């Protein structure tokens, strides 16, 4: 994806975790070290004021990307460039401090991400104090009240404890805390997955309103494609640590290329009840410790051939879109889809 002056760009980002057995057992069993490639060389860029969504099934590495971007993990390889500054190269705390307040994170579980012993006022005041944004305590209170009102809570709610709020209200508090340091960029890791649908609608509407008012950019991690359709401008589909397709969201939803993207879109329950026909895809996500060789999706892919098993697919550009699939690269995908569709019995 070619983006002029992006707020965030990651280049060849990788993260491996050491999942080796204990030393003694390795010696006894004559095993080597084993690593898990959670994120394997991904590239994307987020334009200013826009939302890029990463989707994929559990274990695909999407949450690891979120944690890498905010610096909760250090990358094994690659660059994370935030507004022209390479975060991965920065080491010292003082170097980080000036950029750190410009991006914040919202977590999935609003019950685990707020300290139950702190009043809401103190929770939201912490980033303000940590970054030295306020001149005095009155200014802190003013900023806390402002942020509570931004998320449609009352300034008086600051006196309460988190347990006095419902799940949706707690997620509003998390958003208020994230906004307290006046960031430009928010990383949201499944922010509505723990919420009921009617509350999810409230939070999604709030996030869109805030984006418009404050010019925020979002990296939005989700497994729910309908939510992503609603909120994202750009979409990245991940499978076993690799980004298999990335590009403008509307384009991918209308005309998915990678067979895995097609499968994901096909698996969305049909709320319209049109009775549309699906191409069945069997199997499950393989273990990321021993991923299949070549294209990771080949054991589940109805269009795979020998090359898919042997060779890791490179990048194919289609307009603004980037796809990693041999069938797309060779231009044989459409014919293959036709063939499989004819072979499968009418559902």
């Amino acid at each position, binding site marked *: 994806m070619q983006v002029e002056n992006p707020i965030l760009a990651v280049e060849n980002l990788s993260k491996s975790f050491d999942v080796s057995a204990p030393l003694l057992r390795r010696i006894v069993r004559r095993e080597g070290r084993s690593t898990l490639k959670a994120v394997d060389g991904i590239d994307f860029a987020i334009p200013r004021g826009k939302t890029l969504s990463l989707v994929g099934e559990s274990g695909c590495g999407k949450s690891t990307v979120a944690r890498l971007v905010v610096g909760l993990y250090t990358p094994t390889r690659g660059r994370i460039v935030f507004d022209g500054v390479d975060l991965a190269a920065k080491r010292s705390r003082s170097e980080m401090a000036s950029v750190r307040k410009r991006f914040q994170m919202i977590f999935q579980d609003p019950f685990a991400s707020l300290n139950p012993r702190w009043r809401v006022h103190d929770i939201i005041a912490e980033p303000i104090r940590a970054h030295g944004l306020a001149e005095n305590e009155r200014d802190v209170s003013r900023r806390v009240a402002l942020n509570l009102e931004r998320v449609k809570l009352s300034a008086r709610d600051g006196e309460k404890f988190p347990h006095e709020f419902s799940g949706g209200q707690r997620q509003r508090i998390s958003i208020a805390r994230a906004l307290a340091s006046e960031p430009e960029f928010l990383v949201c890791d499944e922010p509505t997955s723990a919420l009921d649908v009617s509350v999810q*609608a409230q939070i999604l*509407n709030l996030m*869109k309103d805030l984006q418009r008012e404050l010019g925020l950019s979002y990296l939005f991690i989700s497994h729910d494609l309908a*939510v992503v*359709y*609603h909120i994202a401008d750009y979409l990245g589909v991940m499978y076993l640590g690799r980004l298999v397709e990335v590009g403008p969201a509307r384009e991918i939803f209308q005309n998915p290329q990678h067979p895995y993207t097609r499968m994901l879109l096909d698996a969305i*329950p049909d*709320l319209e009840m049109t009775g549309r026909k699906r191409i069945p*895809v069997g199997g499950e996500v393989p273990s990321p410790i021993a991923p299949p060789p070549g294209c990771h999706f080949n054991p589940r892919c109805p269009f795979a051939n020998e090359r898919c098993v042997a060779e890791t697919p490179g990048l194919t550009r289609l307009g603004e879109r980037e796809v990693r699939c041999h069938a797309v690269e060779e231009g044989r995908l459409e014919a293959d889809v036709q063939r499989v569709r004819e072979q499968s019995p009418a559902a």
Partner: protein
Amino acid sequence: MNSDPTANTDKTVSTDTAVKADATVSKKKPVLEVRNLRVEFAGRRGALVAVDDVSFEVNEGEVLGVVGESGAGKSMTGAAIIRLLEPPGHIAGGEVWLDGQRIDNLSTEEMRRVRGKRIGMVFQDPLTSLNPLYTVGKQLIETILTHEDMSESQARERAIQLLAEVGIPAPERRIDQYPHQFSGGMRQRVVIALALCVNPRMIVADEPTTALDVSIQAQIIKLLKNLCEEHGAAVMLITHDMGVIAETADRVAVMYAGRIVEIGPVRDVIKNAKHPYTEGLMGSIPVVGHDLERLAQIEGSMPRLTEIPPGCPFNPRCPHAFDRCRVERPNLIQAGPTRAACWLHDTPAQAAE
């Protein structure tokens, strides 16, 4: 209002007529009938009502979806039917009938024989519903031998056949493995095999696909539906996911604050909801292909059990609420093909019927 005895008799009358109306829709006989079920939690400040006067039936070979947000009482209803309520929760009123036999007043020992044999269960988390210390084969065989009179080798054969039926590859080998050796989707298949192993008449499935990824979810839904058709079992499918309901259920009951607010054929409820809550709920679900700047949202949240407002429990959030809604609680009223607990449908024509 709830403790008023005259109001209670009123309710029974209205449910009876409603049952008749439903019988004309589907001619199959009901496998499970729930009548005016009430579940309470005893507390220091009086009882909390988690399920309040819920009546429905599930017919042979039918999938009834029960949908609602957290705290709506849907799982409580399921747990009350199979009598697995955690104390201090208890059934405070109403009846549960299975195939013409009343089961809510059976002794614990009698209920044990009903559970597993005549009602199967599938829970949300497959890892906690399987014992990690026993092989899946041992768990299947144990269940079969508890309820059926057969030898151990016959039971093992039946278990292998069941595993094959739920789509587990190489079942002869997999039967001697432990639950941790199965992936999430495969584990849920084992749980379904466990629920089906003695051909129950009724299956209560509580959020069977919630812990699974979307691609696996579609596989499990299809499996559950096919198996129930083949075995002729009735299914009560409890979920918060309208998409799952749309794909699977024949009829759907929408719950709110412990009550059924709307019940009817799934297509009518989804496409043409009669209760303002159902309408709001459907509007708040994002759909691929619908370009909306904002999602429709229902203001506020579901009341806590201690703070259920008088009259219709939805009235503080309802855009159409009028005076009657704040005072008098609506029962299910016929509104086209569905029934909705909403005074908007209490027209003079309806009253004359």
